[in-house]
């Protein structure tokens, strides 16, 4: 990981900031897609190194934030079944469903276990054959290959006590939704480097062409992000709208073909509800018919209902990039990470959590 320092080098960061200031000639609004990028921008104060004419909006790339209430309610209900071990990534434990969260289900005696990989859940299923092990598969394209591998492996081993509650989402349909919205302000995207490491970036080319927006595949370190911004601005200034790759040390045009093949074998694209955004066609993954036996919704009944309550905050607008967290009247007053109203304040990748963590004390200082 020593290479990381190179991408946090203050001199390089300052050089890029100066190049950006020289490049931009009029107000521009860009969006970083991924919540990890949002956190890096706020953590390192990168937005403050940009000229006032450049606005960064924060995108919907927080998988925890967009997981629909119905799936969280289903996970909580499963955790309440005595035979079930509900395995989840740690992030999901504090995300509220229509009443309560998985941490609460665990406190009430539910067997909820934090795992670091779906393969850990598979291991639990092997060790505890008398229990039903359900893995809560949440995420964008980044986590899909590992989840696909777990199901593929379970089928090969005939692990009948393993299943998956699948809540996978895909990035390109979200970009369509944002660009197609009447209130859209986004003129260019920093696409998520990790997602493109798996998927490549060919699927972004029709989007760039159709909406005339530059899309730059971008990494997560300060130098990466500012370089992505600079490449995006150069395209806008030159009147180009192409897909470019800033994150060349990780992303190839075709992505990781082996991982993509596995995902295509195990999953099928389907319509999906995004929390705070709504129903998006062909925007999610479900298990393919050949693997349907490992679908927790088939085994234990479908996730249903889970109406989104009005959280009393603007989490939905924040997720769509239409507003920023400090615009919310509840931000840092009625809504804090300890007592969150909206899911964007809960998740470690959420934009509100990032603003709270890295910015909110400033108002107290002034």
């Amino acid at each position, binding site marked *: *990981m020593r290479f990381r320092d190179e991408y946090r080098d203050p001199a390089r960061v300052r050089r890029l900031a100066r190049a950006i200031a020289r490049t931009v000639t009029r107000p521009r609004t860009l969006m970083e897609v991924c919540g990890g990028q949002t956190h890096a921008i706020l953590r390192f104060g990168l937005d403050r190194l940009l000229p006032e004419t450049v606005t960064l909006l924060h995108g919907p790339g927080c998988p925890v934030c967009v997981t629909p209430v119905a799936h969280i309610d289903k996970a909580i209900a499963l955790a309440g079944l005595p035979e079930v071990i509900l395995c989840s990534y740690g992030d999901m434990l504090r995300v509220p469903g229509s009443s309560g969260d998985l941490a609460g289900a665990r406190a009430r005696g539910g067997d909820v276990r*934090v795992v670091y990989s779906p393969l850990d859940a598979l291991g639990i299923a092997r060790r505890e054959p008398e229990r039903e092990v359900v893995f809560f598969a949440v995420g964008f394209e980044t*986590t899909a290959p590992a989840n696909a591998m777990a199901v593929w492996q379970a089928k090969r081993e005939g692990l009948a006590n393993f299943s998956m509650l699948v809540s996978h989402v895909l990035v390109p349909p979200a970009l369509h939704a944002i660009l197609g919205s009447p209130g859209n302000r986004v003129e260019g995207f920093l696409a998520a480097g990790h997602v493109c490491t798996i998927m490549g970036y060919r699927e972004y080319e029709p989007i760039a062409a159709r909406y005339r927006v530059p899309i730059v595949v971008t990494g997560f370190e300060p130098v990466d992000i500012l370089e992505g911004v600079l490449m995006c601005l150069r395209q806008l200034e030159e009147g180009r709208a192409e897909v470019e790759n800033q994150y060349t040390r990780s992303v190839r045009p075709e992505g990781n073909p082996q991982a993509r093949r596995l995902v295509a074998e195990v999953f099928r694209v389907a319509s999906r509800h995004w929390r705070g955004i709504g129903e998006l066609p062909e925007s999610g993954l479900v298990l393919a018919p050949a693997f349907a036996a490992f679908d927790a919704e088939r085994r234990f009944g479908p996730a249903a209902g889970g109406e989104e309550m009005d959280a009393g905050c603007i989490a939905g607008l924040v997720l769509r990039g239409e507003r920023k967290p400090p615009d919310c009247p509840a931000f840092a007053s009625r809504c804090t990470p300890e007592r969150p109203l909206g899911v964007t304040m809960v998740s470690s*990748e959420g934009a509100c959590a990032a603003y709270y963590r890295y910015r909110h004390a400033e108002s107290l*200082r002034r």
Partner: protein
Amino acid sequence: MSGGESPSWNCPLPEAESEVVRLAAGGGGRAMQRLLEEVIRPLLDDPELARAHDGAVLDPGGEIAFTTDTFVVRPLVFPGGDIGALAVCGTANDLAMCGAEPLVLSLGLVLEEGLPVAVLRRVLASVKTSAEAIGLRIVTGDLKVVERGRADGLYVNTTGIGRLRSRHRIGPAAVRPGDVVILSGDVGRHGIAVLAAREGLGFETMVATDCAPVVAPVLALLEAGVAVHCLRDPTRGGLASALVEIAEAASVRILVEEAAVPVREEVRAACELLGFDPLHLPCEGRFLAFLAAPEAERALGILRNFAVSREAVVIGRVEEGASGRVLLETPFGQERPLDMPSGEQLPRIC
């Protein structure tokens, strides 16, 4: 009593020779005596314990510091240490943070039925080694055994008494604008070591805990007459919580230079992967010292004579401003607030 065999019907095999701790050993009868006499007292080996009385009688002489801590770490043994070392160093370090020289410790053990006696022996041996290294004695103790499933193998409580060595009261109230903040070494290793051992995370480089007594360098500072205003060990909640607690208690503003905080490369890498902030991870062999800026060089000179504080550095300064806030100066010349972690640290998805 749980179902199954009643303790009174247990096979009369001597406890120390069986492989695991039995419920009967907590019953106050012969089985407990055997565990105490054959395993615990020989390993701890202190004349005060050998008297097998209800308590110890002490004459500390002068003002004392008094503190207690309970240790519930899982797993019991992790890279570079175990719960025994942690229980002794943790309480000894808390006494040192009061400006006191640790003298005696009590040891309360809650054992879970079924705990391998070999594990108990290992933990007690490391209690003894750690205590000897610090020069403190275990003079009294307690033993309970709970049913299987009611504890994570072994819980430890240590309560300690130390003799005050500082001429003035050390604490947040003494922190002044103009003070510098010294950190005795790198942060985050204990948190990553325990997490990796608990969750079976196969990192390429094994991270060992930083668990160690910090008594010697602290006493050296005090003996040299360095006017230390406040000491704090960044255990639970890490460096961030320790700094915020002091800033709030002292009603001052603390500025920390992010790049100056030493973090091992392998800890940084693990944090990047898991979505943790190294400043939120617990340390068990580190401390912060607040003192007037003109004293800083002399203090660093003293601290760097000890292995445990060889990497001591100035990481920040105390400023006027009753905001009770900690600000981190990023390498790009920006400032951002540093806050305590909120609740449980949960590893992220991607």
